[in-house]
């Protein structure tokens, strides 16, 4: 590949992810509004929020690590976007693969832990300890799912995974071939997005939104940007592994948004679990589903 083309893709992929992510945040808030019989926010509301937060005059920083933590949180996802193949753009997806992506999606949580740690706010510390516990909970089923998909397709290369599914048509989609693993993946997705009932680290009434308690201005703006990336990364990864990637942008975006509707709709039906209940549930049901799914995986 020509280097100019590669650089253009590396710049474009996170940019596209951000814009699509803004609409995903909007969809999340609209679904919440519809389920609660409200009208919901205007179309550009996520953008207004971010511009306003970065335009705040006071940007209270608690030190170097506080700044660096947010950069790490957003940077981890920006790096992850370049490893996710989208229609017409592969970026460096061929060089990376699922294992690299798995590691990169953990970096934001660790970055946040660093940043929040320096705030020295007890609510923040409780929040981040819960966030890392949540990561421990959803990563076990997530790794089983990744392993199953890699065994089925005989590769960890995401470009190959997409190519195999598109060559074989609908019957060769991951979700059709490995329904149990796809279900376990949905469970893990719910935990990964931090949606109810697994919303243990953003507990507004209990620990004042946990990791975000000391974040104002550009720091909260950074976290809003991170949320856009997070929704995009999680849904695109699921589409790539189980729904045959995207042949073109229309089907790709339709699939990505459709994947997110499931956790977001479920989120407003449930209250929040306690931390240990989340661990117990995620280590039991999706892990059992995933392990049974692994048995039926055929190469």
């Amino acid at each position, binding site marked *: 590949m020509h280097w100019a083309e590669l650089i253009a893709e590396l710049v474009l992929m996170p940019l596209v992810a951000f814009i699509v992510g803004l609409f995903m945040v909007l969809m999340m*808030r609209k679904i919440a*509004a519809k389920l*609660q*019989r*409200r*009208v*919901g*926010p*205007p179309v550009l*509301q996520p*953008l*207004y*929020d971010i*511009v*306003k937060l970065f*335009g*705040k*005059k*006071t*940007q*209270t920083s608690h030190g170097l690590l506080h700044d660096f933590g947010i950069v790490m949180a957003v940077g981890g996802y920006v790096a992850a976007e370049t490893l996710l193949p989208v229609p017409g753009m592969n970026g460096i997806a061929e060089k990376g693969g699922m294992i690299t992506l798995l590691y990169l999606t953990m970096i934001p949580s660790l970055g946040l832990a660093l940043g929040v740690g320096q705030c*020295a706010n007890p609510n923040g510390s409780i929040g981040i300890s819960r966030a890392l516990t949540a990561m421990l909970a959803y990563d076990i089923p997530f790794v089983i799912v990744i392993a199953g998909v890699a065994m089925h397709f005989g590769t960890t290369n995401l470009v190959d995974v997409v190519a195999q599914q598109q060559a074989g048509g609908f019957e060769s989609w991951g979700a059709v071939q490995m329904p149990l693993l796809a279900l376990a993946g949905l469970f893990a997705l719910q935990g990964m997005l931090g949606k109810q009932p697994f919303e243990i680290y953003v507990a*507004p*009434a209990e620990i*004042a*939104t946990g990791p*975000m*308690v*000391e*974040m*104002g*201005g550009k720091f*909260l703006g950074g976290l809003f940007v991170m949320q856009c990336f997070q929704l995009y990364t999680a849904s695109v990864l699921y589409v790539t592994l189980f729904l045959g990637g995207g042949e073109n942008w229309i089907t790709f975006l339709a699939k990505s948004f459709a994947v997110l509707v499931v956790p977001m709709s479920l989120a407003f039906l449930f209250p929040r679990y306690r931390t240990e209940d989340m661990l117990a549930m995620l280590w039991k049901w999706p892990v059992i589903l995933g392990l049974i799914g692994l048995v039926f995986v055929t190469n």
Partner: protein
Amino acid sequence: MSDNELVNQQFPVKVEQPGGSGNIFARVFDELTAFCRSRSLFILHYCTGCGAIELPPAMTSRFDMERLGISPMVSPRQADILLITGYVSVKTLKRVILTYEQMGSPKYVIGICSCTVNGGMYWQSYATAKKLNDYMPVDLYIAGCMPRPEAVITGLRQLMENIRRGEANGWQDYYQRYDHYLGHQQRLFGETWQTPTDVIAEAKHYGLFSNETLGEHTKLLQQHQKPLEALEMRLGLDSKDKVEP
């Protein structure tokens, strides 16, 4: 030629227009920020009195505040608006001022209910602060006992309009006339009153330092002000050297 004109010729004076410099891009950016500020308001969940009960209906399905871009937040660091919903007792007012000083600028205060305007039905109470405007800059009052959710929404829309036009500048007033506000606070809380926030340093930082920032009351504050210290970290609180209550 008068002296004044002579001076003007030698030292050409550039009159700054209100609304920023002549750079058109800076102007566009300022307008955009002001518009986004007015369309995205995070309110702080710190409700002091009975008026707070009007907020749940204003937020939920019937009136739906989120249509206007107004959503609740729980931490002062994230918030733009501090809603004072009802009477503030002397004890509560201390916490309200602490909360207000921790919010990031630009920040706005809305006084809801008659009690924030003039004490309302607590006019003769020894424990209620009567005029909220004396202790912190209030951008907007929504009067009533209590105001209906329609009135709350109308008030918030008015605030949005003021922000868009750059007229909601109460927070600047707090830094510019800090001595005035501090005087009222000291009258109520005693002369040793201090908050952890260094408002004078912040006023200098924002370029809002004026003649009225310092005065007799800030002089009194500086006599006893202790800088904010980090909390002492210690393990084993039941050891011999534990802190006596």
